[in-house]
């Protein structure tokens, strides 16, 4: 057998496109987050609350990733912000190529804050750099406190953890301190926010953090 050495990441192409995106964002002074979670943890609701909070003070653009339908983009466009929907047609994650294409229909010059909502999936999006400044992983208390241990890569690769639906804590069997400490065991540097998008609790702290990061 002839052996050809090839030291290269499988996702090298994605990473190269992600670097292009990162430079384009930097040039235009855009701060970008990539929001990831399992289906239904409350990503779109968090996007809505965040837009409401910054309304009139910051120019936000949104990229919505879904397997099917533009329902999330419809929800977000009700807030009068530029939004592009990416439909992956079965694809379980966004990749940098999809994001780069969708960015063509956004005006980066007039954007301060770009929110990318990934496809609902706690596994696959973890490995794909989209050129964002940080990944934000959302988990709702209804999912259980063991999820960081079961899906470590997502927690390892994120800078921020938003624990959502804390209004439901009285009704579910989830120990939020256990959830937090499991997440911090995987990634001691995680910045953790406890919020309820329904009652608004904790949203100010999350938004202050974003404002200070920009």
């Amino acid at each position, binding site marked *: *057998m002839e052996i050809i*050495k090839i030291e290269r990441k499988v996702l090298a192409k*994605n990473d190269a496109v992600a670097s292009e995106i990162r430079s384009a964002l930097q040039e235009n002074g855009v701060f970008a987050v990539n929001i990831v979670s399992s289906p239904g943890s409350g990503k779109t609701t968090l996007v809505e609350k965040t837009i409401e909070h910054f309304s009139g003070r910051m120019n936000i653009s949104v990229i919505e990733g879904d397997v099917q339908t533009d329902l999330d983009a419809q929800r977000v466009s009700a807030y009068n912000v530029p939004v592009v929907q990416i439909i992956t047609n079965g*694809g379980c994650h966004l990749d940098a190529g999809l994001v780069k294409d969708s960015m063509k229909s956004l005006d980066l010059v007039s954007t301060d804050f770009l929110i990318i909502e990934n496809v609902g999936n706690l596994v696959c999006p973890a*490995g794909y750099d989209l050129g964002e400044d940080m990944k934000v992983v959302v988990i709702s208390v209804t999912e259980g406190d063991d999820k960081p*241990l079961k899906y470590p*890569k997502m927690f390892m690769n994120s800078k921020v953890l938003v624990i959502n639906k804390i209004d439901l804590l009285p009704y579910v069997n989830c120990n939020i301190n256990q959830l937090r400490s499991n997440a911090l065991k*995987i*990634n*001691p540097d995680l910045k953790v926010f406890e919020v309820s998008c329904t009652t608004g609790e904790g949203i100010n702290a999350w938004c202050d953090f974003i404002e200070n990061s920009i």
Partner: protein
Amino acid sequence: MHELSLASDIIDTVKQTLSHEELPSLRKIVLEIGAYSGVVPDSLSFSFEAITAGTELAGAELEIINIPFRLKCNQCKTEAEPEYPIMLCENCGSSDTVVISGDELKFKEFKISESEE
């Protein structure tokens, strides 16, 4: 199921690296996959087989080297392979640790049969 899209990324790299004439004699694509890379090796091999069937790459298969999660403590210098990718030192409990391996998802080599069968 991002294994399917990874399989097509792998094929893209193969086609960029090898000439068209070399493709049918490619036997093995050696990959290193870390324990917390998020990739299921069996599923990746299955996807690769499914999309290369009937193509010039039908004779090639994936050879996967599993890389364990390894952590080194900056405080007490202990190296360990914890069951979960927990960033705390098993020995002294410090969180001042570095990951040595476990997130790999990369090519190592291609094996090509020299004589055309």
